[in-house]
C-alpha cells in the first residue's frame, strides 16, 4: 500500500482538475461528491498507508515517482518521504481536511461559485500534501508556494467586495517577504552543501558545520524568515487577522489547521540545522513568546468572532514556536495536531453561528444563544476548554508538554515558561469571553433564527468535538524523527509548577466569568480609566502593527513610487522611440515627390562619391 503514496497529492489534484475544467457546469451534488470525495479517498489511502507503515516497524519510507529535472549534480525529484512527522501531518491534512470539506458542502451550498470554491480547496490540499511529503526542499517549496496561492485565492474568494481583494493581496505580499527569505536560504544551502535533499542536507550540515557557525546561523535565520511569514509570527503576523475575509471553512482549514502550521513543520523538519545554531533556536522561542503574548492581549479586545479566533491561532502557533525554540520538537508537533482539532472545531462552530445569524460577526450583537444554537454551543464549549488547556482535554496535554520543556531548559527557560503561563491565563480569559458573550446573558438581537445545520455540517462538528476532548491521548510516532536514538527524558518538576500550570487557565476562565456572566467585575468600569482606554485602543489595533507598517514601509514606498512616477527606465526606452520617430520624420521629408529633386540628389551623390574616389 505504501507505494501508492503518490495517490495522496494526486487525488485532490484530480479533483481540482475536473472541477476547474468543467468550470461550474456540474450540478452541485456532483461538485460536492468530487470535492469532498477526493479528500475522503485521500484520507482512506493515508490511513491505509499509516497502518502499514506503523506495522512495518520501518522508520522511513521513500518513494520516488519521477525525477523533476536534472541539471548537473542537482536533480530534485517528485520523491515522497514518509516518516513519523510527515505521517502525522498527512493524517491531519487529509483527516481534518475531509471533515472541513464535508462541512463546506453544507455551508457553501447557497454560494453561486460552489464549484470554484471546491476546486481551490482541492488544489490547496494537493499542495499541502506535496509540502509535507516532499523529500527535498525544492518540492517542499513548490507545495509552499502552492498553498500560498490557494490562500490568496480563497481569502479573496468573494472578490466582488474590494476589501476582500485587499486582504488577499496583503496576505500574499506579507507572506512573500518570508518566502523570499526562504528562497535565499535554499540557494545558500545549495551553494554551501551542494544538495537540497533534506536528509542529505542535515547529514552534510552536521558533518561540515560546527555548532554556532556563521553559515548555519545564516541559513537557519533565512528559513526562520520563511516560517515566520507563513505561520503569521512577529513581525509578519499582520496578514492573518485580515485573512478572515475568506469563507469560514477556509479560515478553519488554511488559516488555523494546516497552512499556517507549515512554518512549524519546516522548522521541525530541519531541526538539526536549528540545533547547529543555538542562538537562532533561542530566537525562535522568543519570537513565539512575543507573538503569543501580543496576540493574546489583542484577542481580549476584539469584537469580531473570527478575528478573536484568528488572534488565538497566532497565539497558539506562538506556543508551537516556543516549543520548537526550547527543543521540544515532538511537543510542538503534538500541539500542532491538537490545535488543528480544536481550532478547526472552533472555526466551524463560528461558521455555524455566523451562518445561522445571517452573517453576523459582532459577538456583542449575539448574547444568550445557548438554547438557540445548541450544537454550536457544545462545540464552542469543548473547543474553548481545549484551547484554554482545561485539564485532560487535548490542549492541556500538548501545552503542558511545551511549557514543561521550556521550564526544564533552565536559565532563560524559566522566563519563557512564565511568559507562556501568562499567555495561558490570557487564553482562558479571551476564549471564555467569547463563549460567555455569545452564549450567555441576555439576547442582543437575532432572536428568531434557528440553527442551520444539516447532517453534513453537524457530523464534522461532532467528530472534531471527540477529537478535541480525547486527542490528547493519541501517541504520535515522532520519537524516531527527533530523538536520534536517544532516550526520551521525562521532565521532573515540582508539584507547585504543575499546580500553577493547571490553575492559571482556570483563573483566567474565572476572571472571564466574573466579567461577563456574574457581573461582579464590569468592563465599563474598567474602561472609565483613561489609561485602560488607551491600552484598549492599542490592543484592539493589534499593537498598532498595521499603523507601524504604514509609516515604516507603505508610506516611504508610496513616496518613492510618486517620486518615480515617470519611471526612469521607461524614460530611457521611450527616448529611443522618440529619437527614431523624429529621425523617421526627417528622412521622410526628403521624399518630396519631385523628380528633379531626386535627380539633383543623385547627381550630387555621384559627384561626392567621385570626388572621394579621385582625391582620396
Amino acid at each position: 500500500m505504501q507505494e501508492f503514496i503518490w495517490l495522496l497529492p494526486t487525488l485532490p489534484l484530480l479533483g481540482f482538475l475536473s472541477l476547474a475544467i468543467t468550470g461550474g457546469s456540474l450540478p452541485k451534488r456532483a461538485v460536492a461528491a468530487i470535492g469532498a470525495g477526493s479528500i475522503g479517498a485521500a484520507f482512506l489511502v493515508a490511513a491505509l498507508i499509516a497502518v502499514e507503515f506503523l506495522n512495518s516497524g520501518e522508520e522511513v519510507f521513500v518513494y520516488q515517482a519521477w525525477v523533476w529535472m536534472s541539471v548537473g549534480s542537482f536533480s530534485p525529484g517528485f520523491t515522497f518521504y514518509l516518516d513519523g512527522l510527515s505521517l502525522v501531518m498527512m493524517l491531519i491534512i487529509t483527516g481534518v481536511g475531509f471533515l472541513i470539506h464535508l462541512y463546506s458542502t453544507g455551508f457553501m451550498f447557497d454560494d453561486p461559485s460552489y464549484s470554484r470554491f471546491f476546486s481551490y480547496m482541492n488544489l490547496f490540499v494537493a499542495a499541502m500534501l506535496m509540502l509535507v511529503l516532499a523529500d527535498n526542499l525544492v518540492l517542499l517549496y513548490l507545495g509552499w508556494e502552492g498553498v500560498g496561492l490557494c490562500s490568496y485565492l480563497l481569502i479573496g474568494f468573494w472578490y466582488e467586495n474590494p476589501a476582500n481583494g485587499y486582504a488577499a493581496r496583503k496576505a500574499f505580499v506579507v507572506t512573500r517577504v518570508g518566502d523570499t527569505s526562504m528562497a535565499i536560504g535554499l540557494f545558500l544551502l545549495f551553494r554551501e552543501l551542494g544538495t537540497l535533499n533534506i536528509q542529505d542536507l542535515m547529514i552534510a550540515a552536521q558533518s561540515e558545520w560546527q555548532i554556532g557557525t556563521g553559515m548555519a546561523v545564516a541559513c537557519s535565520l533565512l528559513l526562520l524568515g520563511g516560517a515566520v511569514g507563513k505561520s503569521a509570527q512577529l513581525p509578519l503576523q499582520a496578514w492573518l487577522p485580515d485573512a478572515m475575509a475568506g469563507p469560514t471553512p477556509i479560515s478553519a482549514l488554511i488559516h488555523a489547521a494546516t497552512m499556517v502550521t507549515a512554518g512549524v513543520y519546516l522548522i521541525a523538519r530541519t531541526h538539526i540545522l536549528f540545533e547547529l545554531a543555538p542562538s537562532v533556536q533561542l530566537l525562535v522561542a522568543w519570537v513565539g513568546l512575543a507573538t503569543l503574548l501580543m496576540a493574546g492581549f489583542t484577542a481580549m479586545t476584539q469584537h469580531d468572532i473570527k478575528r478573536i479566533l484568528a488572534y488565538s491561532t497566532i497565539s497558539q502557533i506562538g506556543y508551537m514556536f516556543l516549543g520548537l525554540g526550547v527543543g521540544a520538537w515532538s511537543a510542538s508537533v503534538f500541539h500542532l495536531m491538537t490545535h488543528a482539532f480544536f481550532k478547526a472545531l472552533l472555526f466551524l462552530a463560528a461558521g455555524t453561528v455566523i451562518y445561522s445569524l445571517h452573517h453576523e460577526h459582532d459577538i456583542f450583537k449575539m448574547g444568550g444563544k445557548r438554547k438557540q444554537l445548541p450544537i454550536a454551543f457544545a462545540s464552542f464549549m469543548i473547543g474553548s476548554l481545549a484551547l484554554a488547556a482545561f485539564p485532560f482535554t487535548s490542549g492541556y496535554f500538548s501545552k503542558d508538554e511545551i511549557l514543561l520543556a521550556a521550564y526544564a531548559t533552565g536559565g532563560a527557560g524559566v522566563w519563557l515558561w512564565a511568559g507562556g503561563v501568562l499567555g495561558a491565563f490570557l487564553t482562558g480569559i479571551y476564549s471564555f469571553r467569547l463563549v460567555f458573550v455569545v452564549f450567555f446573558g441576555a439576547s442582543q438581537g437575532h432572536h428568531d433564527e434557528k440553527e442551520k445545520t444539516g447532517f453534513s455540517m453537524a457530523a464534522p462538528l461532532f467528530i472534531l468535538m471527540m477529537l478535541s476532548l480525547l486527542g490528547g491521548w493519541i501517541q504520535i510516532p515522532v520519537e524516531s524523527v527527533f530523538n536520534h536514538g536517544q532516550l526520551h527524558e521525562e521532565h521532573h518538576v515540582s508539584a507547585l509548577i504543575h499546580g500553577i500550570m493547571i490553575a492559571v487557565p482556570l483563573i483566567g476562565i474565572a476572571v472571564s466569568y466574573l466579567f461577563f456572566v456574574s457581573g461582579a467585575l464590569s468592563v465599563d468600569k474598567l474602561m472609565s480609566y483613561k489609561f485602560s482606554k488607551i491600552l484598549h485602543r492599542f490592543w484592539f489595533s493589534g499593537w498598532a502593527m498595521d499603523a507601524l507598517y504604514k509609516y515604516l514601509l507603505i508610506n516611504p514606498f508610496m513616496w518613492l513610487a510618486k517620486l518615480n512616477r515617470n519611471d526612469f527606465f521607461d524614460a530611457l526606452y521611450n527616448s529611443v522611440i522618440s529619437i527614431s520617430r523624429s529621425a523617421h520624420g526627417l528622412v521622410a521629408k526628403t521624399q518630396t515627390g519631385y523628380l528633379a529633386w531626386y535627380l539633383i540628389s543623385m547627381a550630387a551623390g555621384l559627384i561626392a562619391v567621385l570626388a572621394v574616389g579621385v582625391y582620396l
Partner: protein
Amino acid sequence: METIPTEHGLILAGILFVLGLIGVLTRRNIVFVLMSLEIMLNASGLAFIVAAARWGHAEGQIMFLMILTLAAAEVAVGLGLIIQMYRKFQTVDISVLSEMKG
C-alpha cells in the same frame, strides 16, 4: 590625316552631358526631359567613341551601338508611359505629379 585631340572630344562630351543634365533637372515638360536624357546618352556614347579612337580599340564602337539600341528601346518605353500619363492626368507637367511625397 590631322586627328582631333582626345581632350577636345572628351570636353565636348562633358559639355553635352552637363547640358543634358541641366535639361533633365530644369525642364518641367516630360517630353523635354526625355529629350535631355537622349542628349546625355549620346554624350556618353561620344565619350566611348573618343576613347575607342584614342586606344585604337573596337570595343568603344560596339559600346556605342549598344547605347543606341538602348536609347531606342528607352524612348519607346518612355513615350508609351508619357502617353498613358497624359491620358490619366491630362498633363505633361511632372511637377504636378508629386504624389509619392513623403
